[in-house]
């Protein structure tokens, strides 16, 4: 006998006298007991309830960070996802490109925000935008997408078919159908390398939006699907750019630039034994200088074993141009483990021609693409809304130079706050020991650099072509590099030459991604690497010419000398060889004739 609720028991108390009442009661009881019986039988296991509340919490958290992008007066748009409280949000290149520099974005707090384009990555189909007006936006948590496994639950949140006109995004649930997928580019743009495949519905308008794991943490950016006969609606195969790829690009995406992806300068294919071998290599590539040759077998790349061509393309596709990536290969039976600098897929002019505004284009409707077509070049900038104006600076070759300048200043100010180089604008003299070879002293003067080294004396004349002076021999141009190191500190970024913020990347000696400033003085390109945690310069590269190995200097063991942070240890590397380790014991600065 099932327990009755108190109401029904109360009814039963009266049920003695009149037959009619009894019948009525019986009917009443019957109709009320049955639902009660049913409710009794439905015992939901705690695990199901727990799973359900976990899912509700995950969707709630994830939905808050999802952005609905509206562009072109409501005719186009897509999705995005907030990744920082101050409003930086990821989307697809093919979503924001038709929108131009400014767009309107909504989140599920019910408000519409102005947003500005920060950077575009046309090859990776990624864009960074910034929502304006708040510094407490709900941001998604970035997961390690290499932990994602086939079969994991996941869900997409976004604006499919631009349905979210009430600013509440659509949630579609599914599983991860495959990981480390490779999907070919359209020409050279919109390549989906190492992407996540899902059967969660990805439809037009989902593009640029987030794919979350079952905890509501961000694992990818949806942007593409395989379609065929049903038009461009979901057929169970959607792809998301892995968030780990985007993490590699994160510094670059904050640079306001138009980003390029990388090439090794070599092509590979699978031979009859199933090995991945080099079938073509450019002699001007860094890979060639590191010893990679035709016929060599690729063993690992970017820390992954390479067993298929797709596997190789997957690794190549997740790194920005300019990164140095570990590589291992077999050359004539010998295993070589080294780092290789990746060059660009395009020349800068080529890339620009594909994406910069050059003619008026009607905005296309962004959609995930089966065989994607690159969107039309960005429309010529219209009048920007007043609130967006302060956050945009036009400059050729940049998506939004404002954000490049912002980062240049951030990095440089953090550095000179600690090193105060601007008030030591005379000659610098460095004294110390070069490894265990003996004493070394280097005078960085206004017109020349003189070095007294254990190997002998060396000098550089600064009025001559800097690119032709590689003294001391074997260093790749240490004296010129040190001169430029001094020079940029004395002049600051404004007077040194053409300077821009490249992005951030690890070095062979730093796992932590370093902020990189590229500074060109006359024809010499230098790259200065700064630690984001200390703000100090950790290394520099000086390229006397393109197509040769730079002189690399690694600065470490900073100490405060007269309230100035100075490096005690300089390691000098050229190509595959360490030129020497310079231990500095004494710094002498002539600031306008004075000495420290």
């Amino acid at each position, binding site marked *: 006998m099932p327990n009755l609720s108190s109401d029904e028991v109360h009814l039963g108390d009266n049920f003695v006298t009149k037959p009619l009442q009894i019948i009525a009661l019986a009917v009443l009881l019957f109709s009320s007991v049955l639902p009660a019986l049913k409710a009794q039988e439905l015992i*939901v*296991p705690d*695990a*199901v309830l727990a*799973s*359900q509340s*976990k*899912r509700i919490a995950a969707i709630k958290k994830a939905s808050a960070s999802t952005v609905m992008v509206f562009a072109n007066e409501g005719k186009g748009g897509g999705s995005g996802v907030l990744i920082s409280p101050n409003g930086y949000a990821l989307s697809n290149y093919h979503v924001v490109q038709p929108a131009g520099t400014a767009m309107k974005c909504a989140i599920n707090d019910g408000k519409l925000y102005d947003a500005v384009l920060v950077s575009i990555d046309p090859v990776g189909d990624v864009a960074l935008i910034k929502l304006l007006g708040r510094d407490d936006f709900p941001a998604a948590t970035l997961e390690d997408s290499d932990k994602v*496994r*086939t*079969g*994991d*639950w996941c869900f997409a949140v976004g604006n499919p078919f631009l349905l979210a006109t009430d600013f509440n995004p659509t949630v579609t649930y*599914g*599983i*991860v*159908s*495959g990981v*480390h*997928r490779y*999907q070919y580019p359209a020409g050279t743009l919109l390549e989906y390398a190492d992407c996540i*495949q899902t*059967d969660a519905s990805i439809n037009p308008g989902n593009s640029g939006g987030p794919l979350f794991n*079952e905890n509501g943490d961000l694992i990818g950016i949806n942007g593409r699907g*395989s379609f*065929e*006969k*049903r038009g461009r609606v*979901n*057929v*169970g*195969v959607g792809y998301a750019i892995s968030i780990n790829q985007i993490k590699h690009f994160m510094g670059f995406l904050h640079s306001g630039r138009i980003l390029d992806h990388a090439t090794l300068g070599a092509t590979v294919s*699978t031979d009859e034994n*199933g090995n991945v071998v080099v079938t073509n290599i450019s002699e001007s590539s860094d890979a060639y200088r590191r010893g990679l040759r035709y016929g060599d077998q690729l063993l690992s790349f970017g820390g992954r074993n390479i*067993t*298929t061509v*797709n*596997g190789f393309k997957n690794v190549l596709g997740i790194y920005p141009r300019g990164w140095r990536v570990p590589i291992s290969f077999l050359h004539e039976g010998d295993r070589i483990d080294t780092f290789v600098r990746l060059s660009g897929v395009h020349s800068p002019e080529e890339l620009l021609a594909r994406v910069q505004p050059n003619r008026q284009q009607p905005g296309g409707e962004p959609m995930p693409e089966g065989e994607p077509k690159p969107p039309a070049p960005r429309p010529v900038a219209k009048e920007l809304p007043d609130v967006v104006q302060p956050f945009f600076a036009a400059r050729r070759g940049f998506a939004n130079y404002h954000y490049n300048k912002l980062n240049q200043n951030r990095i440089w100010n953090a550095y000179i706050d600690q090193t105060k180089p601007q008030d030591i604008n005379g000659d610098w003299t460095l004294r110390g020991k070069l490894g265990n070879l003996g004493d070394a002293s280097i005078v960085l003067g206004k017109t020349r650099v003189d070095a007294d080294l254990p190997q002998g004396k060396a000098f550089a004349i600064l009025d001559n072509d800097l690119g032709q002076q590689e003294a001391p021999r074997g260093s790749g141009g240490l004296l010129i590099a040190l001169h430029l190191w001094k020079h940029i500190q004395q002049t600051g970024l404004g007077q040194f030459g053409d300077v821009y913020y490249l992005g951030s990347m690890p070095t062979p000696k730093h796992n932590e991604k370093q902020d990189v400033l590229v500074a060109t003085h006359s024809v010499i390109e230098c790259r200065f690497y700064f630690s984001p945690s200390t703000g100090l310069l950790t290394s520099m590269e000086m390229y006397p010419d393109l197509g040769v190995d730079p002189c690399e200097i690694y600065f470490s063991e900073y100490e405060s000398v007269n309230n100035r942070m100075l490096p005690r240890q300089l390691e000098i590397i050229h190509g595959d060889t360490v030129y020497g380790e310079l231990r500095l014991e004494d710094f002498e600065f002539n600031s306008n004739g004075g000495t420290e």
Partner: protein
Amino acid sequence: MQRLLLAILFVITGSSGIAQGADFSVTSAEVQPKMVKIYGAGGIRGLEGYQSGFLISNQGHILTVWSYVLDTEYITVTLDDGRKFQGEIVGADPRLEIAVLKIDTDSLEHFKLGDAVGVNSGSRILAFSNLFKIATGDEPNSVLHGVVAAKTPLNARRGAFKTSYKGPVYIIDAITNNPGAAGGALTTRNGELAGLLGKELRNSQNGTWLNYAMPISELIPAIEDIIAGKTRPRSLNEDIARPDIPHTLKTLGIRMVPDVLAKTPPFVDSVTAKSAAEKEGLRPDDLILYINDRRVDSCATLRNEIELIDQIDNVTLVIQRDDELIEIVLQGE
């Protein structure tokens, strides 16, 4: 260890079909080594030269769908670990639209047909296949999830769906009706084999695509016959007993197209008036696929097989006429 993990997970999540905790990643890892990628004829627009399949014996037998992809001497089978083999057709059953291939290796992980299970409406399922040829080499097949919407005879929709398979199918809500998915495996959430993903089918009346799988139990007798060699032409055995008075094409009233190729497809050229063949409705341009359950792939094989059938016995032909399979029985005397 994985099994233990699976068992523990099952206890945690209880038996509810909607529980979320079932770790499909464990199931996927267990199923993937049994899946193969099949490459063959096709490759022109609208006719993809690839499909899916899975291992069903430790001697390298592979179950897949019978399709134009297999209509070539060179079928390549890529295992989950990336190894490539040439696949030989052991046999096919066009009525079920299935084929069994064999590769020359053994001791591979495989589904045991005897362990295949039935699933009910509402059952959670996974669909493994290489749809859209997304995976190459040692990359795993794609996995879709869904539930069984219904188990229903496909022939209830006769006229709507062009298929010769007339048995029951599982209708599923995972979108398996995609290029290359045919031949894939339908499994339970725990990776037990339940069905074979069927070929792409579109309803000719309303244009909708059907996501379905054929229950393994419907296929087992045919698979066993194929593996046992019961569908191979008897004439391949040299020491077979020959009847004193066999049937001939002439006595049956069938004239085949001129035999000019090494393997001339066995098309009927003409049918003799008032012959048994005409009486039973055989027509010019019919393609003979089977004779007395033996597969016929050429005019020569057809002639050789007929010579092994005594005139007192019936001759059963399976023919293809346009998109339809038709069985015709010619009575013996």
